[in-house]
């Protein structure tokens, strides 16, 4: 299978301090990859590094054969990576439809195919397309946020803790949507607090701790690893 994204030995942080040290992560085409780890492990930071929101001092990031290290976020968006932040990831005072429209801001021409694709994935949203996004429940907001990010037809979707604060029922639903999205040909890299559930559903996983790679492998493999279980998963 083709390698879509590879972070090779990335070191960097926000200011002068390096939060990530020599972190390597790889995502293949149409793959769901999850990053787990304890609080402060640098999970979200690793994801932000891909999206150009970090000062990178070492290593490289290759996406779809392009070296995107140091690119500005809006160039990365155009190249085919979309990012859904953990919080404040919707336009609250705009309708669902307008949220999607803003997601496709850089796209020229007819957007109807993109709307159709997103509304097909999230039929609930289509019914309520005129509703203000701020009036939706947490799970539905997450769907709007993902829908917004999918409007540009990305090849890779970055999700920062998409299930944070959601009930188990919604968590399952979000995971199911991730599979559906993957089935349309989009690879997903996500950060998760709910390590157990996330590893069970993802194709592969990385365990980070203190800004460094600890373990990696298929979800099942990591779940079976006693060290991983004891260190991060709380049994």
């Amino acid at each position, binding site marked *: 299978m083709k390698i879509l994204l590879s972070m090779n030995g990335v070191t960097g942080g*926000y*200011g002068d301090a390096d939060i990530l040290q020599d972190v390597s992560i790889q995502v293949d085409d149409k793959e769901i990859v999850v990053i787990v780890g304890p*609080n402060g492990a*640098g*999970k*979200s*930071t690793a994801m932000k590094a891909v999206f150009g929101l970090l000062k990178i001092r070492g290593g490289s990031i290759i996406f779809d054969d392009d070296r995107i290290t140091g690119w500005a976020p809006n160039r990365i968006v155009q190249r085919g990576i979309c990012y859904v932040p*953990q919080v404040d990831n919707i336009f609250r005072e705009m309708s669902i439809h307008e949220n999607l429209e803003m997601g496709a801001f850089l796209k020229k021409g007819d957007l109807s195919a993109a709307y159709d694709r997103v509304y097909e994935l999230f039929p609930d949203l289509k019914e309520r397309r005129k509703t203000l996004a701020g009036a939706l429940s947490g799970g539905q907001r997450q769907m709007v946020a993902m829908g917004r990010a999918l409007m540009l037809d990305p090849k890779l979707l970055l999700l920062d803790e998409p299930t944070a604060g959601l009930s188990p029922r919604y968590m399952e639903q979000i995971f199911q949507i991730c599979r559906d999205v993957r089935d349309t040909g989009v690879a997903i890299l996500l950060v998760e607090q709910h390590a157990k559930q996330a590893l069970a559903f993802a194709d592969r996983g990385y365990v980070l701790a203190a800004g460094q790679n600890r373990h990696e492998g298929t979800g099942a493999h990591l779940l079976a690893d006693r060290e991983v279980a004891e260190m991060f998963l709380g049994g």
Partner: protein
Amino acid sequence: MELIGLANYALFMGIFIGIYALLALGLNIQWGFAGLFNAGIAGFFAVGAYTSAILTSPYAEGRLGGFELPFYVGWIGAMIAAALIAWPIGKICLRFRSDYLAIASIGVAEIIRLVIKSEAELTNSARGITNIPRPYGDLPYVQSQMAYLAIVAIVLLVAYLMVERQFNAPWGRMMRAIRDNELAARAMGKNVEYRRLEAFIFGSALMGLGGALFAHFNRSITPEAIDPMVATFLVWIMLILGGSGNNRGAILGAAVVWTIWSVSEIATDQLPQEYAVKAKYIRLFLIGLMLQLVLRFRPEGLLPEPLRGDLRSDDVSSEK
């Protein structure tokens, strides 16, 4: 110009620099240390000037007064009055970002201006309050000026030492933490609001004192004595140019800006009448431009804020 004239002028300027330095010091407490934007300096100044005038001047027909209290009572009264006005405004506005305080303080100054102009029984409206006693005002002219300069200098020195002491105390450290890190400040909650309120009130009290010193020096105060916008703005540029956060910078800024301001006034007054009027506005334009240039090219001012130990640790952003 004759030597005597020059010496007199220097005395005169020294007194004004001292008064403005007091205002700049007051603003430094508010802006330099607590990050509070006060655009109504002239209002607090006027309240101080009128309060002290009312408390100390002899009886006059048709207005409140005739208390003839000693000047220092008037000055303390000026500080209290300015503080009492600052208190409710701060109480309401300091919960929000400083933008709201900026707008409200413009409003305060405007209301104070209206009250001074319209409440004749309080302020004698346009005619103003005259016969305000001046300490050592009975001495011959030059000696009297020198005595007043000495008084202003002493007041300024005392204010400086007190403010400086506060800044190096835990209070000052906390103020800077609040100013520099809004998030940490929010986490401290109510306490922060209270500290900010303190800073706003203390700063305003100093501005009130500055107003009182001005009124006693002139022996009179009228609504037209100062142009509110010009006075407010001059104090701002003094602090920013001198170095906000630095008390010595505030005083230096007052000296530099007042010297430029009044010397340029003398220069432009030599021009024919019609140009002289225009020149006044050109000077205002230039002083506005000066602020923009300082903000852009030397935001730390002439004397940057001294590192007081607590500022040196780098703010390391953590995840989330």
